[in-house]
């Protein structure tokens, strides 16, 4: 399934914990299933928007701040696999990537997750975030510039 991983990763990046991310994806699907009319627009954008909204709502309900999600954003990566299946020399690379992604402002991190791990186009991202395409593309570009600086020397 094409978007399963991307939706869950986005939920993790926003909600900050696996349980909360799972609930967000579940809640988003429940909303889609309960809809009487077919969602307008791109279905992938609609699903990502639904999951993001559910994750944000869940975070609000739990009273968690965006900073909590930021500190937990490293959780989008598979820690066990990083620890066991990767060459030893990659540990430092992995750590720097995790920290760089976690250090992004939340909206930039969401853009990176949607684009890299969700495989969305800028048009779909704009639809999911309800923002102009130029804004979303510019946000992604800023994120990439920042990551490029943080990860310089790793490529």
């Amino acid at each position, binding site marked *: *399934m094409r978007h*399963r991983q991307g939706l*869950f990763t986005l939920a993790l990046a926003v909600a900050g914990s696996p349980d909360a991310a*799972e609930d967000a994806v579940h809640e988003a*699907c429940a909303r889609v299933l309960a809809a009487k*009319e077919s969602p307008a627009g791109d279905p992938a954008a609609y699903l990502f928007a639904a999951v993001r909204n559910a994750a944000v709502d869940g975070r609000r309900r739990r009273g968690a701040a965006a900073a909590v999600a930021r500190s937990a954003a490293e959780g*989008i*990566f598979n820690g066990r696999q990083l620890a066991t299946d990767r060459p030893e020399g990659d540990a430092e690379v*992995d750590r720097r990537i995790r920290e760089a992604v976690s250090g992004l402002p939340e909206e930039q991190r969401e853009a990176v997750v949607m684009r*890299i791990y969700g495989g969305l186009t800028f048009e779909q991202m704009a639809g999911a975030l309800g923002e102009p395409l130029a804004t979303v593309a510019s946000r992604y570009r800023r994120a990439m510039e920042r990551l490029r600086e943080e990860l310089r020397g790793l490529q």
Partner: protein
Amino acid sequence: MSNDEREFREVEDLLRRMPLAEPPERLDRRVLSMAGAGRFRRARAFALAAISAAAAAAAGAAVTLAIMNSSGRRAPTVPLPNPVVRRSEAATPQADLAVFKGPVRVERQRVGRTSAEGMIDVSGEDAVQRYRREGVREIWLVDPDNNRRVDMAIPVKDTVLVKVEPY
């Protein structure tokens, strides 16, 4: 490609190489149980695109779901090279796709391999030959309104007994 784009590509490649935390199978079961089985409304087809096949796999089938996002053509196209078609209760004949307002479910089963597994002599009955068939059950859910498609491919195995005719 500009220098920026090239450098961004390198950063993107680094990010893509990172292993991600995977959604738990419990989530698949929760969503699938919500979606129900058999009948599909439009919204369900959208939701199913977000669901993994894990629950179906647990039932003995490996299912692959994908949104097939075509280039925006209005006319629906359902790939049916061999017109062996079974329709569910909610399905609509292919000829009516242009006027149908909901998702269409089309199924076909393809036999990939048949192997003979010997004779069986049933006491008091005729002898039969047992064949094992392996194939793929393919299901398409098509929304003619926007030509989006959810595809599923389920490996199937079954056994057929064929009565042996004496010369």
